[in-house]
């Protein structure tokens, strides 16, 4: 199943039941998956987990024998894992109220902010005005300042700030630029970072992150008007678990193993946001958000910059996750405002693949005729 509860393309069939019992040898004897979760919970609550993350700087191997045994015994939680399986595994006490309705609510509707490509201006007028508005004489590029208005045949009609009339954009393009990045089965490579949800080290990080926010997840109510703020706080807390230094600024592990990078590793922005994507993707169905792996550029220096875009359901509010810049979750409007605000980034494309077949029930836009 996809995070939106729709049909299951191959990209989302990477499910290994988290309820399955995996018995392995460890320093404490033989642990079942459930026992491993309980041991991880004990360590999380006692503060004893920190010592288990230590890795060999060159190989990225966990140094603690207990960590190796414990993490190997944990259930694998993937982007395809159903929330119900997390409860069965003891990683959650309850699923958020109204989660299914939130995931099934139409996501292409009037007023939704979308990424589109058009002729847009990225030259700042002054510090108080955001960049990315429409300009017929500007070069073509992505803008985040577009909103869905209606549909006409194979196009969506989009209001772009600064344009005098709605702009038609092919539906397939809107889907390609706004649907979440897919995480296919098996090992995924993002910017060279190897993401394998069966890797014990990554299992440890994903399960520890879930346990740390389990009580707050159980309290989420998607019928509550304030749910978007609660979702944002939880995503920010999870993203904040990525504690890396920029390449060349630390002495941590600098290889391609995501589990070893996540806590104390080093890497450029592309690497850090790939690590954050690996940690956040298994939470997407549970917390009802979409994740896009973005490729961008800074405006002031014109250099490449990688970050993530998070879209909450059902509010469709958008945020940027940028661990390399110390931003676990920043409102997209602020994150892309302009070079004079310290939030100096613009979107140029996406890494990975996204699903462009969107079910009709996901679209709730009026039809406009020419």
């Amino acid at each position: 199943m996809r995070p939106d509860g729709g049909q299951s393309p191959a990209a989302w069939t990477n499910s290994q039941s988290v309820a399955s019992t995996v018995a392995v040898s460890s320093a404490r004897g033989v642990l079942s998956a459930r026992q491993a979760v309980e041991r991880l919970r004990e360590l999380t609550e006692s503060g004893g987990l920190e010592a288990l993350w230590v890795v060999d700087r060159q190989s990225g191997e966990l140094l603690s024998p207990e960590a190796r045994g414990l993490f190997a015994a944990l259930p694998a939680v993937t982007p395809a894992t159903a929330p119900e399986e997390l409860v069965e595994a003891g990683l959650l006490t309850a699923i958020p109220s109204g989660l299914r309705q939130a995931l099934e609510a139409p996501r292409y509707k009037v007023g939704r902010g979308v990424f589109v490509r058009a002729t847009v201006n990225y030259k700042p007028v002054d510090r108080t005005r955001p960049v990315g508005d429409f300009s017929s004489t500007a070069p073509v590029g992505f803008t985040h300042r577009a909103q869905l208005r209606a549909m006409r045949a194979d196009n969506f009609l989009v209001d772009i700030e600064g344009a005098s009339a709605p702009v038609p954009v092919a539906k397939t393009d809107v889907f390609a630029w706004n649907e979440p990045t897919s995480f296919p089965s098996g090992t995924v490579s993002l910017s060279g970072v190897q993401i394998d949800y069966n890797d014990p080290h990554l299992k440890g990080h994903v399960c520890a992150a879930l346990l740390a926010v389990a009580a707050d997840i159980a309290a989420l109510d998607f019928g509550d008007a304030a749910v978007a703020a609660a979702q944002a706080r939880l995503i920010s807390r999870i993203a904040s678990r990525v504690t890396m230094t920029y390449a060349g600024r630390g002495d941590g592990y600098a290889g391609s193993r995501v589990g070893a990078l996540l806590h104390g590793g080093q890497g450029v922005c592309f690497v850090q946001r790939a690590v954050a994507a690996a940690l956040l993707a298994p939470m997407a169905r549970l917390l009802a958000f979409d994740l896009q792996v973005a490729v961008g550029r800074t405006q002031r220096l014109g250099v490449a910059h990688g970050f993530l875009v998070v879209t909450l359901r059902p509010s469709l509010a958008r945020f940027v996750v940028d661990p390399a810049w110390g931003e676990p979750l920043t409102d997209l409007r602020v994150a892309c405002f302009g070079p004079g605000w310290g939030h100096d980034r613009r979107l140029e494309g996406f890494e990975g693949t996204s699903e462009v077949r969107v079910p009709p029930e996901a679209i709730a836009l009026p039809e406009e005729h020419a």
Partner: protein
Amino acid sequence: MIVVRYAVCSERQGKAVTRVILESRTEAERTLEHLRQNDGTTPESSYWVAELGPECESWRWLVAASSSEPVKGGAATSAVAPTSPSASKTSATASGKGV
């Protein structure tokens, strides 16, 4: 660590960036000094050279993106190899007048 590329990096207000990727340390250090001098009135707070290993191929993305070639901007159904960014596709009208 086997070093395959050198990243010339700088940081300002806590936002680190990679300015350029080069194949030799000598060239990277020369470029660092050049950038430090040419940033002029808006200098970065720090500059350094980072070694990039072969395990992590993020440098390919940085090189591709820095070449001003478009990365995947339109063809979202196919993955784009970092070394061969695909051409972007433009669908929005350039006039903004709509239809």
